[in-house]
């Protein structure tokens, strides 16, 4: 008798606990976890899923590059042939245009200088490189067969940077540095060819280029803004490409190039050497008219690549087409119009 209320209490609590447990468990009933319906749903999702694709820019842009380069080269040839009077201002304007288009908008890559490595690779296995790159490489060479190294002054983004960031009255190096330059550029050419044909396929020429961080920064920012316009999941913003070392190297080369014009062109660029060799047999070579020349030496002072040798005592006036970049400063400054 005494135990009965106890028993009822015990039963009641047990029932309560059970119902509470049942109540707690009840929401799980509509969520069984491994139901066949659900896995069918998942399978359907998996089947119908279309992977997201990240298309690179179409290669036709590279052909536009070729066309723009051709336009620059024709302009350069007109300058070199004297159809347009070359002045420092006009040269700077073309340099700035080349820098903005090939450098900032197109990232300076693939540039004809770097394409040297691509083409070496392409000679071994043609399927490894694109047609547009080959055209990019060959256009300046054909142009140099016609009118000399016009690419260096009109169209080369590297040349443009060096041209824009130099003093008007610079330091003139002694003549023997030309031989050093010949040696270093040849070494760079041999190194580039060997590096690209080695197992690692190392793009030596691109490693030697100190100006690429500038181009990459411009291109990265431009391409990012383009991506924002196309509606990709990217935000606005300025991108600084490259490491601190790369920027310090750029700074050092720019400072050097302020006093010594075109340091990369003259002492490193293997493509410039190729262009120069072809320039020596070009149809329109720059030369000094020995009869008209008065050996004043004005052109010699203005030549950024040290290609002119004027000896007043022995009445010698020489111009090396191997080194001349067809900037036209000499023709502009000559009082007798002897440099053509």
């Amino acid at each position, binding site marked *: 008798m005494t135990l009965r209320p106890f028993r009822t209490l015990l039963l009641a609590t047990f029932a309560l606990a059970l119902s509470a447990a049942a109540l707690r468990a009840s929401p799980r009933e*509509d*969520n069984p*976890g491994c*139901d066949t319906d*659900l896995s069918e*749903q*998942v399978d359907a*999702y*998996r089947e119908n*899923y279309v*992977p*997201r*694709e*990240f*298309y*690179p820019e179409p290669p036709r842009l*590279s052909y536009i590059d070729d066309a723009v380069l051709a336009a620059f080269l024709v302009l350069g040839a007109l300058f070199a042939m004297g159809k347009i009077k070359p002045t420092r201002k006009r040269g700077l304007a073309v340099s700035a245009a080349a820098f903005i288009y090939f450098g900032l908008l197109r990232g300076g*890559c*693939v540039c004809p200088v770097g394409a040297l*490595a691509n083409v070496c690779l*392409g000679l071994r296995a*043609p*399927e*490894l*490189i*694109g*047609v547009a*790159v*080959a055209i990019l*490489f*060959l256009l300046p*060479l054909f142009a140099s*067969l016609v009118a000399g190294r016009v690419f260096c002054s009109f169209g080369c983004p590297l040349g443009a940077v060096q041209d824009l960031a130099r003093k008007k009255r610079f330091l003139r190096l002694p003549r023997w540095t030309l031989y050093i330059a010949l040696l270093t550029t040849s070494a760079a050419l041999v190194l580039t060819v060997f590096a690209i044909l080695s197992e690692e*396929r*190392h793009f030596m*020429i*691109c490693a030697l280029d100190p100006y690429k961080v500038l181009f*990459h920064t411009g291109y*990265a920012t431009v*391409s990012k803004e383009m*991506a924002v316009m196309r509606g*990709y*999941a990217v935000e606005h913003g300025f991108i600084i*490409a*490259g490491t601190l070392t790369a920027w310090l190297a750029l700074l050092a080369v720019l400072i050097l190039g302020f006093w010594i014009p075109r340091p990369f062109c003259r002492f490193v660029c293997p493509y410039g050497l190729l262009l120069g*060799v*072809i320039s*020596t*047999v070009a149809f329109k*070579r720059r*030369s*000094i*008219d*020995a*009869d008209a*020349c008065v050996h004043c030496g004005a052109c010699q002072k203005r030549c950024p690549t040290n290609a002119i040798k004027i000896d007043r005592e022995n009445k010698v006036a*020489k111009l*090396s*087409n*191997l080194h001349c970049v067809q900037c036209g400063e000499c023709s502009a400054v000559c009082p007798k119009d002897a440099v053509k």
Partner: protein
Amino acid sequence: MSEESEKNGKELPRRAFLVNAGRAAAACALTGVAARILLRGSKDAEFDKPGTRYAWRIDPEKCVYCGGCETACVRKPSAVKAVNDQKKCSFCVVCYGHVADQHVDSKHIDSAPKVCPHDAVVRKRLAGGLDGYYKYTIDHAKCVGCGKCAAECNDRGTESMFLIIRPDLCLNCNECEIAKQCPAEAIERVPICPEDDFKGFFGIDDQLPDQS
């Protein structure tokens, strides 16, 4: 090699001959290079379409998710992004690539600490209730390509997450900075393709199943 001034505008006969020979040699060389590349008499017929270019890619089989891609790329943030292969993902409630502590209650997963330092792994309910199926995607606006999620997923999960170099972001440098420092040498140049978030495909010709 230097060109001397020409006397009275006329070249000496021998000199003229040499110059002409040089011109011919240069023209021949250039035409030869052009012919070799443009005609491309190669064995691989699939490379024959014009404009075939190469792009950088991470081999997901070799990648060790070291995190170098985040810092090495010339782009900041990196052109390398993580993706989740939806055809392979198990749609788990608790994802190794998503939450740092896998023992967390399924109610609190969304507020729990994440593997991704930038919270770029997006978790959305796919089917069922709280303990049903979830799909995981990576928000590329936040992703920096550190590969932490992919490392976890490949370590303990279903190996569905992996890193890609997005071709639309890649600057296609001749010398890839990531390739230079990659410890697994997983960065390689392949024919350009729309690299997608489906691990099985990848556009590499020799690994594609025969579909044509």
